[in-house]
């Protein structure tokens, strides 16, 4: 080969870049977030099946936000009770930011901008 | 010789919209005026080229040898192994089309197979078919069989490329059609299918040292005529030497400079300059050619012809070599000579004996371009000029393809022109420097039988000249290339008369004030200088 040094150096850089996922994870065992316990067909607040909530919660929350901010419809009735469409006073009343939201988001590298404004009382304890 | 169609007829025939039919389904049509005569066997035989025979490129039967296909494909395999450029350029083209409308032959003819990318695809389709796995699938993989018609198509279009490299400037991967054309022509030469107009000068140059076949005594007598004219115009008798051992510098220029107008006027410029400087230099009749038709024939032929320059510099014992104004000559000297025929250990790193400037950019090849040499003289105040002697000239400068894109000599000639002329105007930016357009006749295409093609190829250049002629009254196109000096006068004349063509050193010769000269009434062409017109008439 001619100019072999430069060519091989270039190839090594190329291989190092494209095989990055393999050597960076060498020997690792990946813990995926624990499977959720609720059944997919159970209903969530808003009369949405939990399976659908898992897939589309970001869109549903977005819709609720619009209803609150633009339509003033702050509450939602589910199973006879009233719930507030609110992250702090609603979602976080049952779910934990860290253990519930964060688990999957972190695993999948999802960066929702909810927390740019919203606040979790868990953070006080940190 | 003037071609039949009028400029406006040719111009109105240009159409940049290719046909809808796929190009592989479009068989080649040999248009009269677009292809050269075939090489004569005696010329090929003289330089030891294979498969020479009596044949006629306009006939159906080219009398190719029986195993021509094997020769072609073996040759191709050989070149792929020898030239990374070739293999790479066969593999990586994405057909983005950036080069398509950059070729002067496409701009002039509108023939879609003159788009550089398609000219390359003519050969690439063969490469795919015989040298890649996918190519076995045929047309769907962009591959096709090598047939006699395909070979003729390659021949037809590879002699419609002047190896000017303009496409390569615009290619995002630097794919250079000049390089691919060189490969194509190597293959063509394996089959004895060189053109007559190239093979003649090749044989001449091999034998006599120059393309024109001038024998030593003819060179000498040509010079004598030139020196007489020079004495008449300037009152100075210049006494150049030939084949003189012990000179400090060997001077090599294209033989056209001491053979035909307007090249001889450039040559007079060199002679006056060297005389003024008292330069210890010599001409050679053995290495009497700077140009090298091997560049567009085969790398071996290029080496064989080029070898004379170093060989002669060694025999004569000079210290370094100075080279005149020429385009493809300088591509060879700058990019090939040292590699092919070096190292030039018998020479010294060039130093100007007048200014003491070391030409570090030429310290290995040991050959300096005269524009570099003269620009250095002017910068150091060694030359006295009367630029008003060029006041009747509105000058523009044509960058030659090879010195532009295979070297990059842009400022030196401009600096010289601006020192010796008062009126200089550039052509539009998109047509000069690295974007410059070919004269349309380079790389061995200056043949009379393809005049129509050449006029069309020269259209972009001529049109840019027309622009500055109309805008600034330009009446002189200067250049640093012998092919330009030979082909541009009829080209310019065809598209828009009344613009002359000259070498840069002709302008230098006009303006240079030489001790002991008579009062100059004429320029080097024997035409009255500005302000001297009436004097001429009185006599």
């Amino acid at each position, binding site marked *: *080969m*001619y100019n072999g040094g430069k*060519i091989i150096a*270039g*190839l090594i850089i*190329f291989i190092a870049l*494209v095989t*990055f996922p*393999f050597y*960076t*994870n*060498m020997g*690792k*065992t*990946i813990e995926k977030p624990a499977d959720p316990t609720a059944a997919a067909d159970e209903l969530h607040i808003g009369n949405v099946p939990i399976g659908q909530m898992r*897939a589309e919660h970001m869109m549903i929350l977005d819709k609720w936000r619009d209803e609150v901010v633009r339509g003033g419809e702050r509450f939602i009735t589910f199973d006879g009770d009233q719930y507030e469409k609110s992250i702090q006073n609603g979602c976080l009343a049952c779910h934990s930011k860290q253990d519930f939201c964060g688990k999957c988001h972190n695993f999948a590298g999802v*960066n929702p*901008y909810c927390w740019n404004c919203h606040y979790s009382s868990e953070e006080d304890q940190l | 010789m003037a071609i039949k169609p009028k400029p406006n007829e040719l111009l109105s025939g*240009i159409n940049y919209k*290719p046909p809808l039919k796929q190009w592989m389904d479009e068989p080649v049509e040999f248009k009269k005026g677009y292809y050269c005569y075939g090489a004569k066997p005696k010329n090929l035989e003289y330089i030891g080229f294979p498969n020479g025979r009596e044949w006629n490129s306009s006939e159906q039967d080219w009398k190719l040898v029986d195993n021509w296909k094997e020769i072609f494909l073996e040759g191709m395999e050989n070149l792929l192994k020898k*030239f990374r*450029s070739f*293999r790479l350029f066969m593999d*990586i*083209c*994405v057909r*983005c*089309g*950036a080069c398509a409308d950059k070729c002067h032959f496409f701009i002039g003819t509108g023939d879609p197979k003159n*788009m550089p*990318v398609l000219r390359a695809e003519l050969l690439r389709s063969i490469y795919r078919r015989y040298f*890649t796995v996918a190519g076995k699938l045929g047309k769907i993989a*962009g591959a096709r069989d090598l047939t006699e018609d395909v070979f003729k198509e390659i021949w037809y279009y590879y002699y419609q490329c002047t190896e000017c490299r303009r496409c390569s400037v*615009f*290619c*995002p*991967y*630097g794919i250079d059609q000049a*390089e691919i054309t060189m490969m194509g022509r190597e293959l063509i030469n394996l089959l004895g299918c060189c053109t007559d107009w190239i093979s003649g000068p090749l044989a001449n140059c091999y*034998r*006599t040292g120059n393309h024109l076949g001038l024998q*030593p*005594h003819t060179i000498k007598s040509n010079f004598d005529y030139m020196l007489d004219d020079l004495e008449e115009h300037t009152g100075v008798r210049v006494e150049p030497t030939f084949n*003189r051992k012990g000179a400090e510098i060997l001077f090599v220029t294209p033989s056209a400079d001491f053979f035909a107008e307007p090249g001889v006027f450039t040559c007079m410029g060199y002679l006056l300059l060297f005389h003024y400087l008292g330069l210890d230099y010599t001409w050679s*009749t053995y290495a009497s050619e700077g140009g090298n038709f091997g560049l567009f024939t085969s790398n071996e032929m290029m080496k064989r012809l080029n070898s004379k320059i170093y*060989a002669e510099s060694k025999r004569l014992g000079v210290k370094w070599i100075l080279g005149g104004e020429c385009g493809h000559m300088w591509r060879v*000297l700058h*990019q*090939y000579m040292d*590699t092919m025929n070096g190292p030039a250990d018998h020479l010294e790193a060039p130093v100007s004996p007048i200014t003491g400037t070391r030409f*570090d950019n030429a310290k290995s090849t040991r050959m300096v371009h005269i524009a570099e040499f003269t620009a250095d003289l002017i910068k150091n105040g060694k030359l006295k000029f009367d630029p008003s002697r060029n006041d009747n000239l509105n000058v523009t400068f044509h960058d030659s393809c090879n010195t532009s*894109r*295979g*070297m990059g000599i842009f*400022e*030196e000639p401009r*600096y010289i022109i601006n020192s010796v002329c008062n009126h200089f105007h550039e052509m539009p930016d*998109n047509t000069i420097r690295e974007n410059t357009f070919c004269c349309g006749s380079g790389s061995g295409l200056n043949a009379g039988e393809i005049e129509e093609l050449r006029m069309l190829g020269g*259209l972009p250049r001529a*049109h840019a000249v027309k622009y500055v002629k109309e805008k600034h009254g330009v009446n002189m196109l200067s250049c640093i290339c012998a092919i330009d000096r030979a082909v541009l006068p009829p080209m310019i004349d065809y598209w828009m008369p009344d613009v002359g063509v000259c070498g840069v050193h002709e302008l230098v010769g006009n303006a240079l004030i030489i001790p002991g000269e008579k009062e100059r009434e004429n320029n080097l062409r024997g035409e009255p200088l500005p302000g001297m017109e009436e004097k001429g008439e009185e006599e």
Partner: protein
Amino acid sequence: MGMIFSLVAVIFLAAIAFMGAKLNLFGLFGVAIPYLAVLVFIAGFIRKVIKWGQSPVPFHIPTTCGQQKSLPWIKQSKLDNPSTTLGIIGRMALEVLLFRSLFRNLKTHRTDGGPVYGSNKWLWLGGLAFHVTFFVVFIRHLRFFTEPVPAWVNTLDVVDGFVQVGVPHMLITGVVLLAAATYLLLRRIFNPQVKYISLPADYFPLFLIIGIAVSGILMRYFIKVDIIKVKELTMGLATFKTTVPDGIGGIFFIHLFLISVLFAYFPFSKLMHLGGVFMSPTRNLANNSREVRHINPWNPKVKLHTYEEYEDEFREVMKSEGLPVEKE
């Protein structure tokens, strides 16, 4: 014809993947084919580059696009006509990162007076947009191949989605990639010159990449897949502990299969310009051929016409003109 063929081929490939998912061939489409594709990609890429490397660069042939280095008082164009290694690095960086040569692009117009040349930067813009966004999209996908996801990958995602349009937030690169690829396709179809030179090998990768972009965008915004399961699968590939979670959804397998095809196709196609651009002798050589001798490893021995032969033929006429000769 080439265009229709390529379009049909890509649709056919997508259909294969969809059928594969329907038939629960997750092991084949989720593990075996992707591994094979990466293997072919890397091995094929290396093979091709080595093949190029085996041919020498016999001559020093840079295309010079600016003033040469000559006399010290003449300003050299150091990036367009470099004479040093540093200059070459600069020239190559401009070429690879900013598509310097395409930036020069001109368009020739026919007028009654003759040809004129106008600036034309669309191909440069479209090409650059295509390549840059493709690269960013490629890098963004590292979130499926790293655990924990590095902060810079998350940052890239946030920056890419900074317009905060829609949920999940729209990633600009994905949209631009699709738009740029579509532009490149449309110019092949509607620019008569480019149409004339286009081969199936030009349409096919474009359709393939458009298919990949469309399936990706669909998955993100419209036909949701379980992203946790997707990452389980991709991390299984990255750690060589493969798992095939069920219930991911056919659209994912279409996406993954088209990418696998792109990887496997890459080394045998024009896409190798990725490696080739670095090896182009008209760009990666310094214009210093008169300063430093370039060596041709196969510099041939050739038959020469020597001065002695020349003088033997012309001695008499040389003498008659008083030209010096070696032998009287």
